[in-house]
């Protein structure tokens, strides 16, 4: 697995991200984006460097929140949710239609979508399980939570 894994991940949100392969370093299946100042210091055995982008495990790619944040700055598919939904989302809950304030991109059922709070900050992402563009009942689940920033708390347990 290489830079392609991250590009493919971006494609799931409708954007093609470009990463300079010369500045991409890998350590035990974890990918890091460095700059030219940091690069020389990754030649010796390091533990972490620059911006952590995600890890590959069992043939699957698991993105970091840095990568999600990078995607959120692009034209990627995203939804903006209200305050209460944002809180529930970082607690691991799914997104109901009534909590969605705005939608950007051509998000289709079965695809992935970034979930942003009202300040435009990326809280994670989910899988679209409803018809986002269609008027539906308030209590219909639209986006299944896949990864949210509450993970920082869960991973330290």
């Amino acid at each position, binding site marked *: 697995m290489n830079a392609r894994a991250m590009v493919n991940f971006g494609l799931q949100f409708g954007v093609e991200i470009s990463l300079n392969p010369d500045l991409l370093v890998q350590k035990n299946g974890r990918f890091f984006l460095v700059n030219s100042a940091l690069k020389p*210091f990754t030649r010796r*055995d390091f533990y972490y460097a620059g*911006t952590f982008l995600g890890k590959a495990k069992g043939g699957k790619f698991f993105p970091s929140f*840095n990568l999600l944040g990078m995607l959120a700055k692009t034209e990627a598919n995203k939804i903006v949710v209200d305050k209460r939904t944002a809180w529930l989302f970082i607690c691991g809950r799914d997104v109901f239609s009534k909590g969605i304030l705005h939608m950007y991109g051509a998000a289709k059922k079965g695809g992935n979508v970034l979930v942003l709070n009202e300040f435009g900050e990326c809280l994670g992402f989910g899988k679209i399980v409803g018809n986002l563009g269609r008027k539906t009942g308030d209590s219909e689940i639209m986006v299944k939570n896949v990864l949210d920033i509450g993970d920082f708390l869960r991973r330290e347990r």
Partner: protein
Amino acid sequence: MSGKEFFLNRYEHLGWEYREVKLRQAIRINQTNAKGKNLVERLKSLGVCPEKIPFLDEGYWVQRSHVSVGATAEYLLGLYSIQEAAAQIPVSLFTSLKGKRVLDAAAAPGGKTVQLADLMVNSGVLFALDVDKRRLTALSNHLERCRVSNTVVYLLDARQVSQLNVKFDRILLDVPCSGNFASDKDWFKNRTMADVERNAKLQKEILSKAVDCLKDDGEIVYSTCSLEPEENELNMDWAISRLNLGIEEVNCHGQRGLTDIFGKKLDPSIQLCRRIWPGETQGFFVCKLRKRGSSA
């Protein structure tokens, strides 16, 4: 040589009378991430009551809070860190960090590493070392949460820093120490003078290796959260006589360093260090050092 009475007797001889300390929770705003986000107002709207810490640029006491400040979206997005007030002081003592090569010699769990990266505005290169692999996981999580992008982390004993073949502009030596009772309720039960002496020896070893990797005009900030003079003033007295270092005046919270330790007279410049007895904050000690003959 241990026990509460033994240590309190020492503190009394050093001029401080023991009192119970209840530490207030403190946070530090990560300016690089929080710029323009009106964070204080956002925290207030969540039911957090922040009060500016007068002796810190970005520090706030959490007066009271209806939510856990370690579980808000703002915290998880790296807009602020939870960092004890005195622990925010050492990094603040460096002059200009932007674009520099900086070493954090004992970095985990990473509170000061993130603070350094914030003041560096993610520029230059920050080298973070720790000797404990498990603690590097916590450090990495901290770096990811706070969107730090200028840091390289190594599993490396600070005493082997010369392996990196780097000369540093700034070195933070927040060295492993004996801690203090304000942040560890069992401290008096668990600590002996043997621990203090072992730590003081390790600290000298780290300091002497760090000096070898410091640029001629570089700066070292040495800090501990120990109250024991063997790990603080006595080590600094050793450093200025053995390592060709001079102590710089710093303008920060705390009292002047002690120059009379149980009858032993130290170099008068030791008073330029800062000793923080537990009270408003936990106990702490900080000292800024430069190579002698270098220009400030």
